[in-house]
């Protein structure tokens, strides 16, 4: 916080090398992700779309991750709650809305995949699937390619703590450790794998597993986006310096049900959820910017109006947009130039 007087206290984001503009941009992106996510849930409840899966209260740390990376060179392998992450990488609300409505213009999959299955080669966001954790060895492979070609690229992959129990987590981490590859493994530990609380998933700390692979494992508070930024930035610096992978465990909490198909009150209490909802770091980050003199009520009013307009416009566009024609159902099973389609 800026204070008058002879001693100038350095702001946290400034100390981390984030400009004021970037810090404000982070906040705007977090809020955009939040409002988009809320709209997605609303659309499902209104019967306009079939499915939505939420990342609410995980967005501040997701956005912090994106801001710590090099968008021109790095590879991004998000998991299905990463709206904040992909918005920070250049995906637009219109792109996401087209995906929620499963329309042909959806750049992720032309409406073939469920929402939350991101992919955009232009944005270096690697296409993902539903069987969890398959993306972890992919990140290792992308990092291997970067090392072989001498490219300044780091692969960053996210997954839930439930996923960390899959064999692909272990296999991907171990391979990357052996070959000291430029990859960052990020576990977004929201403490639930559908209905299973953390205690039923694992007895240990996810970050401690890094010890077994011979690289650093760091646990960070997901409600402190600037600390997440710092940790991811350091992991990226290590990767670029040839010092190998890092495992980061972001401690967060899933305040929504697993998806719109889940009733979480069957396995946890409202009190528990409300407790964590109260720790939401979005208003905290806003307060930080206000105290730093970087944000005002007027700006907030304008931001909310701008976001509302953007989401409304995207919503309307996506709702009216056509589905991919079933004439295209056989397209892209194989490369078309090979002429060997089944």
């Amino acid at each position, binding site marked *: 916080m800026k204070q008058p007087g002879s001693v100038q206290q350095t702001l946290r984001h400034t100390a981390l090398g984030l400009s004021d503009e970037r810090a404000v941009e982070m906040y705007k992106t977090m809020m955009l992700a939040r409002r988009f996510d809320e709209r997605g849930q609303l659309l499902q409840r209104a019967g306009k779309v079939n499915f939505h899966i939420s990342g609410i209260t995980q967005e501040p740390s997701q956005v912090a991750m994106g801001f710590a990376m090099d968008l021109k060179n790095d590879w991004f392998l998000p998991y299905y709650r990463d709206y904040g992450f992909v918005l920070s990488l250049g995906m637009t609300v219109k792109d996401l809305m087209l995906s929620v409505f499963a329309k042909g213009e959806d750049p992720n999959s032309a409406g073939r995949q469920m929402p939350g299955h991101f992919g955009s080669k232009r944005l270096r966001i690697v296409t993902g*699937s539903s069987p969890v954790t398959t993306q972890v060895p992919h990140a290792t492979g992308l*990092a291997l390619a970067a090392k072989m070609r001498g490219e300044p690229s780091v692969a960053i992959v996210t997954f839930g703590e439930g996923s960390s129990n899959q064999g692909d987590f272990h296999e991907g981490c171990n391979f990357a450790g052996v070959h000291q590859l430029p990859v960052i493994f990020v576990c977004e530990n929201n403490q639930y794998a559908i209905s299973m609380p953390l205690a039923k998933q694992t007895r240990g700390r996810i970050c401690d597993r890094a010890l077994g692979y011979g690289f650093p494992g760091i646990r960070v508070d997901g409600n402190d986006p600037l600390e997440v930024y710092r940790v991811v930035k350091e992991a990226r610096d290590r990767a670029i310096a040839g010092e190998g992978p890092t495992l980061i465990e972001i401690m967060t909490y899933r305040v929504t049900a697993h998806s719109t198909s889940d009733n979480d009150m069957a396995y946890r209490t409202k009190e528990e959820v409300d407790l964590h909802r109260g720790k939401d770091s979005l208003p905290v980050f806003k307060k930080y910017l206000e105290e730093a003199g970087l944000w005002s009520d007027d700006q907030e009013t304008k931001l909310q109006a701008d976001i509302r307009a953007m989401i409304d416009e995207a919503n309307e566009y996506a709702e009216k947009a056509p589905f991919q024609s079933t004439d295209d159902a056989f397209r892209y*099973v194989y490369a078309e130039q090979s002429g060997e389609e089944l």
Partner: protein
Amino acid sequence: MPVIEYIDAIRLAMKEEMERDNDVFVLGEDVGLKGGVFGTTKGLQLQFGEQRALDAPLAESAIAGVAIGAAMAGMKPIAEMQYSDFMFPATNQIISEAAKIRYRSNNDWDCPIVIRAPIGGGVFGGLYHSQCPESVFFGTPGLKIVAPATAYDAKGLLKAAIRDPDPVIFFENKKCYRLISDEVPDEDYIVPIGKANVMREGSDITVIGYSMPLHFAMQAAEDLSQEHGIEAHILDLRTIQPLDREGILEAVSKTGKVLIIHEDNKTGGIGAEVAAIIAEELLYDLDAPIRRLCGPDVPAMPINPPGEKHFLLNKEKVKAAMLELARY
């Protein structure tokens, strides 16, 4: 034209493609200094270095998954599964990922990997060093699957697989490695994926198959020609996905009698689909019911010699089936 062994054809295909394209590399268990447990990658690490003949930790899902990631970054990886029996941990990566990456991204991403896996028995490998898992992957759109029977096709198909823009499973037959030798030109060539090959012309019966059992059919055909004047028409599918429908129908039309052979077990095998294609298109042109001679429907072959012999096809079994069909 030089005569070389099937295993050398595979190694030469990798060596030449690695010389031709810096993005091509091989990864797998023991593929480095040891050159693979069969010697398939021998010399590649010495020539191309540790990165391009990359020893991977013993974890098949990572071998496939890391290869897929590298392929999405633009590399052309060849992932070696030490035995096809051990590739099942990688099945999720192959079927859920490699096969669907182009389709699910609407052509934004692609996955040009080759997965090499040795199939087949007859080496006293027991249940878990002898299997033919083709049918597990067959019928997965997005994958191409090849299974050469000759050194010529092994080299040409592997080169085609490496240059192919989509994932290709290359099932090499470990019994063929040193048993099968044939003429392979020094010059660069490919065998196109999706094209079957007539191995022998004949007018009495048609035999359709792939990989090692075709050699039994070829030997049996010579016997039947000399002993009974029966001339067999033999078609090597070479690619088992996508199947060469036209090639299959043409070969069956030559004789009107067809025997389908493979070492993978009979139920749900490639032969079932080949038989269905024939039945759909040519049922009323047939002069005999479609026959299949395949591995028995048991989990896998035993290591004890009588048990292994009982499981496997051989010249006598194939000859008897061919003769019976010819006399129908």
